[in-house]
């Protein structure tokens, strides 16, 4: 038995494009992984000298989970969106794949995220010049990446929801 897919009417719910879903997934992944990282690191910082704090392995795990989580979450989100439309009998063609609006929103968000990261590089430079422990240098880069990702995703979400 075959089911005929129909084109969506104006009253049908509007779903997110795959790009917008990826932004939401990235935001969730950034919040979860960075929270987990700080949950591990902060108690160590409070209980031992900075030079003895083991931070490289937790950070590598955090970065690994962020990359894998974003890729897997985006794929699952895109498949979920297509299945959701198929269940309603709506043709997903022209609703999931991105277009120029997604590219414009991506450009806007990426630019704001990059501004945070480039500003933080001055801080890294200063820390290196004064001979700060590698813990501070590595963690400033990580913090800038986290804040940059948060600003980038929030900018994109506001642009998708409120307009740009």
């Amino acid at each position, binding site marked *: 038995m075959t089911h005929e897919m129909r084109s969506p009417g104006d009253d049908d719910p509007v779903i997110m*494009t795959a790009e917008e879903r990826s932004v939401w997934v990235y935001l969730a992944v950034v919040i979860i992984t960075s929270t987990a990282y700080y949950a591990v690191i902060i108690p160590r910082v409070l209980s031992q000298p900075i030079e003895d704090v083991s931070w490289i392995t937790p950070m590598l795990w955090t970065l690994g989970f962020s990359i894998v989580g974003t890729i897997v979450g985006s794929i699952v989100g895109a498949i979920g969106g297509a299945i959701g439309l198929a269940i309603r009998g709506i043709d997903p063609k022209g609703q*999931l794949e991105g277009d120029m*609006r997604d590219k414009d929103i991506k450009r806007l968000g990426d630019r704001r995220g990059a501004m945070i990261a480039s500003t933080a590089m001055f801080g890294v430079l200063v820390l290196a010049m004064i001979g700060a422990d590698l813990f501070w240098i590595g963690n400033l880069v990580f913090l800038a990446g986290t804040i940059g990702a948060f600003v980038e995703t929030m900018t994109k979400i506001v642009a998708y929801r409120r307009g740009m």
Partner: protein
Amino acid sequence: MPPKPTKVTNRIRALRFESGEMTQADMAERLGVTRQTVIAIEQGKYSPSLEMAFEIARLFKRPLDDVFHYAGPFQQAEGGSDDQPSS
């Protein structure tokens, strides 16, 4: 969250209904964009590129300023005209 206001308004929704009740999805397919983009343009949440604005106007067989209106400084100063001041 209320939509962010833009200075460009349009009559796309009215023109769609005048054009045989064209759906958002039909319009999106003809323009090669997503339905979400058509909705965002209609609601004034996204200003299309100049090329896309011309494509939309051609789709409805109307001049550009029958479809889009821009309340810019020239219009306010000259009482409703979008034309550039002549030198």
